[in-house]
């Protein structure tokens, strides 16, 4: 499954370890929520980056005490029609000010890229290669957004009130 970051398909520096196997200190690793919460001390001081895979039916605010030690949070779309992780993403970004990598996993399809981006995701385990290749083109489909989300795009009503405002191209925002 191709990983897209900054508009490009990239190699994944993270290893998923979903059981109790030992983890080398300098590995960038993604572990399931149960493991992180069972022994947060295991992950407090590591050379490698730590990420967590958080299921979509669990309250994401439980992660809040651990966020400053997490480089990555992976949220799940068990199928693309199950939109719970959009709320989780916004809560993590906008309420808890999580600044690390927010990764979309599960069934991640092209026609949801822009919603995902606006909800705060910046990394995407894309289900189909053809979709991954079309990422940049897809996210430029729209230049007008009606509502504020955590992505900083000025919603239409703000732009109307300050006619001088123009929306920033999304790809620049990704880099900043």
């Amino acid at each position, binding site marked *: 499954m191709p990983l897209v970051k900054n508009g490009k398909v990239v190699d994944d520096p993270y290893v998923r370890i979903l059981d109790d196997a030992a983890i080398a200190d300098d590995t960038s690793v993604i572990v399931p929520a149960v493991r992180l919460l069972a022994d947060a001390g295991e992950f407090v001081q590591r050379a490698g980056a730590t990420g967590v895979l958080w299921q979509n039916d669990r309250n994401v605010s439980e992660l809040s005490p651990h966020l400053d030690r997490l480089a990555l949070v992976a949220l799940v779309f068990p199928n693309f029609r199950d939109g719970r992780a*959009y709320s989780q993403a916004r809560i993590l970004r906008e309420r808890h000010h999580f600044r690390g990598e927010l990764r979309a996993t599960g069934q991640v399809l092209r026609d949801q890229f*822009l919603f995902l981006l606006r909800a705060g995701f910046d990394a995407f385990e894309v289900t189909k290669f053809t979709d991954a290749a079309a990422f940049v083109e897809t996210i430029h489909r*729209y230049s007008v957004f*009606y*509502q504020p989300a955590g992505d900083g795009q000025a919603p239409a009503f703000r732009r109307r*009130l300050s006619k001088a405002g123009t929306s920033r191209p999304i790809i620049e925002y990704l880099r900043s």
Partner: protein
Amino acid sequence: MYLYDDFDRTLVAERVDEFRDQVTRRLSGELSEDEFKPLRLMNGVYLQLHAYMLRIAIPYGTLSADQLRTLARIARRYDRNYGHFTTRQNLQFNWIKLSDLPDVMADLAQAGLHGMQTSGNCVRNITTDQWAGIAPDEIEDPRIFAEILRQHSTMHPEFSFLPRKFKIAITAAKHDRAAVRVHDIGLRLHRNGAGEVGFEVIVGGGLGRTPFVGKTIKPFLHKRDLLSYVEAILRVYNQYGRRDNIYKARIKILVHDLGIEKFAAEVDAEWQTIKDGALSIDPALIADIVARFCYPNYESLSDQPGELKRARSANPRFETWFRNSVSAHRVSGYAIVTLSLKPEGAPPGDATSEQMDEIATLADRYSFGEIRVGHEQNLVLPHVAQRDLPDLWASLDKIDLATPNIGLVSDIIACPGLDYCSLANTRSIPVAQELTRRFSNLDSQREIGRLHITISGCINACGLHHVGHDRILGVEKNGQEFYQITLGGRADEKAELGALLGPAVPYAEVADVIEDVVAAYVELRERPNELFVETVKRIGVEPFKERVYATR
């Protein structure tokens, strides 16, 4: 009505391009039906029995004459020359080809029309009272906030994959013509004790398999808090609404399961974290939207001008129509005119492309170019000068749009039913047609008085069968069409569900049974203006049951 600016036009144009790309990828097989279906639903494209159906949003039921002409053109060019107005103020075309849809949407976009979010698990068309902005009993025009909510909920990145569809309605009048108590969120603009105007917020109402009247979650919400509060409700629903069973996935189930107090507490906890943020509505935002709402330049006219008085005394048919189809306007000298789309023998709520063009012309001439779509599947010309009523009536009469049956027994609301819809158990339209024939006599209809019959072909209640006075629901028994009849519901501020009359009745007997029910009502009512629903409330269904089932 609201005039699109560049931002609105750009968004719709971008949406058309995206959909064109999606259709191309579907037709080539790059997208499977499973992947495509939610995308086409979010543009209002259903697959029905015979063909695709396109549902076009008519925001808060307000259309310009140019928009109606565009709909007529699309009916002629891409469909079979007619359209169907629905109970949620939308329009449906029943014969559109998928391969034509991108072009159809491009044509619609030119007129500021689209099918966005008229289907799918997202926030649907925000509906309001068809007399919004013109009714005498209104404190403010609710369409301003309907527009603010429409923009907020359009392509909302967080709420495009909700557990299920989400319907919001808003009213600002004493008499609730928007049925806010049977919506997922109902909003009632009113004045509080301190004289401030704000919203009563009602949540968890709905019809269908498990009908509920909504509960008040917040008795008074300030205007500035509307978007943040709605956002909080949606966020709680998005996270906790059931996703394991589509029949238990609406917010009404969540509210019922948690109880209103616990649900309100969840919403409030969420709301406290966002209420003073970016969603706070400042007065400048409201003023900006109001500035793009185009209101008529009313003349200073008096009520009951000479032209009207003379026509009323000279022409009995005009007088009958005037007393039935014309309502008071908040501006003196003007009137609200309802156009009946329920002529005898016709499918309720349909209009041909010729009728649409003619209505557009009449709207330009007599109604400042504006039309409204009602929940009862009729149309409204909202700003008619009283002196123009005789001429208007003559034109409407020529094209079969002046049947004086508004609110009467033959003004039936019916869903498309098994003749069109893949969800239906039974047909609705032929039942409605037969009933309009049985009750065609206008004198009898007037004697019967106000009585609402609604017909739904399945439990999903698109014909609003839970809240008509006399409601008919199609069910299937052993491959035959049967109909359950329920009496005594209402959808307004005194909303209540009703009571079953008795065993389901076969297709061939429905019209007879309804005639018996209506005859029983006329006999049993205390006085001529005791409404059917009041009679049922007073005496219960037993007396009706006796008469109907005695000989069956």
